[in-house]
């Protein structure tokens, strides 16, 4: 009874264009039904068919909350999915269509949050699913892995190309890429500050992947850059001043450290001799 209702709910939920409020009500209904089937969390006594249903509910929930840009709810659904993904394939009546997609989205989500530790921990866990080459060549799983590698190298132009509309593996990735864009721009800006003494306007526009000169001006103002004769001058002098002050302080600290260390050695020597 309940499982049949659940199946009809799932067919409704499968349409990706469902507006968020509607999908939330449907999802909470589905979760109530899961509760009736006592399949909310996996346990060995649950029928494979019900487990499969439960898994799909959570997967769809994760996808819907991502489309609705609700990171908290996405995190919740993904963590609820973890125990399901730990189960052997034989526990379900059919293999999951969305498992790789959800995992890849989760990895990308961790990237946007800057949670690299978790990203790599989870990546390590993927190696249990298949060979590394298999994972990397997967349409979904390979995407966050490639992005991370390019980000680490600093090959931002490749990241940018990969994030363009047509390149993302599915629509949900676009949502996360939108979050990633300003972060990447900030990265580029901070490395440009150090690398270039000055930068012509046009170069800055292409470097930062900005659409118009107006956007460049706005961005330059937000970072506190000086604009003169259609060229951006990075605040090197001011920075150096700040650095010098810092250095003086540091020197003081160094002196104190040397004294402390020497006193420490003396004390230790006393105990030894």
């Amino acid at each position, binding site marked *: 009874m309940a499982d049949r209702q659940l199946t009809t709910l799932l067919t409704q939920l499968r349409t990706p264009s469902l507006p968020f409020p509607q999908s939330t009500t449907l999802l909470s209904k589905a979760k109530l039904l899961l509760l009736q089937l006592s399949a909310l969390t996996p346990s060995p006594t649950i029928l494979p068919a019900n487990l499969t249903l439960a898994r799909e509910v959570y997967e769809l929930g994760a996808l819907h909350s991502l489309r609705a840009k609700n990171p908290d709810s996405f995190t919740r659904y993904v963590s609820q999915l973890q125990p399901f993904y730990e189960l052997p394939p034989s526990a379900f009546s059919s293999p999951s269509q969305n498992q790789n997609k959800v995992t890849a989205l989760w990895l990308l989500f961790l990237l946007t949050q800057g949670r*690299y530790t978790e990203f790599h921990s989870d990546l390590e866990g993927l190696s249990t699913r298949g060979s*590394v080459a298999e994972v990397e060549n997967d349409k979904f799983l390979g995407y966050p892995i490639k992005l991370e590698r390019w980000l680490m190298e*600093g090959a931002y132009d490749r990241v940018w190309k990969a994030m363009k509309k047509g390149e993302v593996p599915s629509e949900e990735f676009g949502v996360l890429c939108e979050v990633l864009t300003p972060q990447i721009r900030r990265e580029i800006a901070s490395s440009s500050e150090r*690398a*270039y003494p000055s930068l012509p306007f046009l170069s800055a526009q292409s470097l930062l992947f900005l659409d118009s000169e107006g956007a460049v001006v706005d961005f330059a103002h937000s970072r506190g850059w000086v604009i003169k004769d259609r060229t951006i001058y990075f605040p090197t002098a001011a920075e150096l001043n700040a650095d010098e002050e810092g250095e003086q302080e540091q020197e003081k600290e160094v002196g104190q*450290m040397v004294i402390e260390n020497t006193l420490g050695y003396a004390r230790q020597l006393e105990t030894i001799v």
Partner: protein
Amino acid sequence: MPGKTPDREPARGGNNNNNNKMKGKGKKGEDEKMTVVVPPSKKKEDVEGDVVVMEGVENEGEGEDPVEKTVADIKSNFALLDRAVALFDARFTLRALRSVSSIRKRLTGDVLARVVAETYMASSSGAEIAVGLLKAIGREEVQLGGKVGGGGGEMEIDSEPTTKAGSGKNGVKKEQKEVIPEIGVFLGILTQVLLHDGKQWQQGLEFSRYLIEKIQELNRRTLDGLSAKVYFYFELFAEQLAPLPPSSQSTIVAIRPTLLAALRTAVLRKDTDTQASVIVLLLRSYLLTSHISQADLLVSHTQFPENAANNQVARYLYYLGKVRAIQLLYTEAHNHLTAATRKAPSSACALGFGQTATKLLLVVELLMGDIPDRATFRQPAMEASLHPYFLLVRAVRVGDLEDFESVVAQHGDTFRRDGTYTLILRLRQNVIKTGIRMMSLSYSRISLRDICIRLHLGSEESAEYIVAKAIRDGVIEATLDREKGYMKSKEVGDVYATSEPGETFHDRIRACLSLHDESVKAMRFPMNQHRLELKNAQEAREREREMAKEIQEGDLDEDDLGGEFEGM
């Protein structure tokens, strides 16, 4: 001796506090005894002495026959275990465990069956475990209580009840003593070793379960050192059963609750041996199934016992280093792994561990941007197994991306087997960085196009971004010129003008000092030696007092003294 009786009783209640108190008392008694030369009146000492002497005779007499010798070797450990229980000193247990590796090569089912049969009487309280042992090695038919195939067995079984009723009465018959459970567990470990060498994983796992149950029932602190070993083999058996570890359905996942429960109990009982061993096993288990976050949680929620055995510390540090390396905490990982390789025993038996730890250490060093010492690769024992890593280091050192990719492709299987593959994939960026650094050092000015060609980067644009990032990360000191498209290197500063030499110097001094401190702490002094001195001092003082008293009373006159002189 009130403190001793409970020690000798195999089946004790679970009242821990009480036991410990009793033990404390017993220990005190022992200490007092240590000052005196072995008192012949004490029955227990007698038995111990007997065993030792007997073993000595056996060793000498039957040294020729390998089976006899093995039997004798195993039995000689019983004396150690006996003493470990009597003196409550874990060192004797450790010594017994150390001999396992030498016995291992000569161990067969028959030898073990014989030892079990000769050690246990059919109706003694330890017989249950003996039956379990025999069953595990597939020799149920062996009779307990006597030589295998000898006629004496039955007779002894018949007379068992009387001996048991009053073990003090039967002075006429052969000395009949209760077999302490430690011996049973020790034989259990030998059984585990035997099953493990015989690749009987399933039986081994079942037997280990049984043995662990027994240990938990017995609940004796003198079993701690032994139970750590039992858990170790338990995990080993589980690892070998299909489906093999990387799969999340492996047996090691199923036995985790048992191990966690054991850990909890060990912590509560301050059983450092089992605690250290089980933490290491759990970490290993988590890493085998790539449950990195769980491993991390375990580390953060447990405290590794400080006075754990050196080997366990080395293993723990290795696993911890691995977790940290995966979590991108390279500095921490480097510290742990360096300590692990240094703590690893240098003998040939731990070569595998040394190699594995060194491999991981090399990769972590590379990830940190350091180039490992070439001498590492020249050690004769490591040379062959480290060869792929040597090629890798060479590629990274030069900064040749193409070379690097080809090494990874060529030795990918080796790296995957070593579990370093994912870490090595992260090295790509380090190769690029090193490459850029080499460029910056060799050229005062180089065009982005050349950088792109030399480092085999995709496009000039990528090269520009990558160089800019390298500048920001402090890899190189340089500036970029966008219009003319080149990188201009800055003058390299003098290292000796910074505080870096001082810091390195400080690090080294600190290492030396802590080495000194640790060696002082590690020094062993004979227990209660000072008490003997105190006693002597007190006696001397008493004598002096007596003498003074006598002089005062005038009893001791010059004649007496003179007489003494004459006597001397």
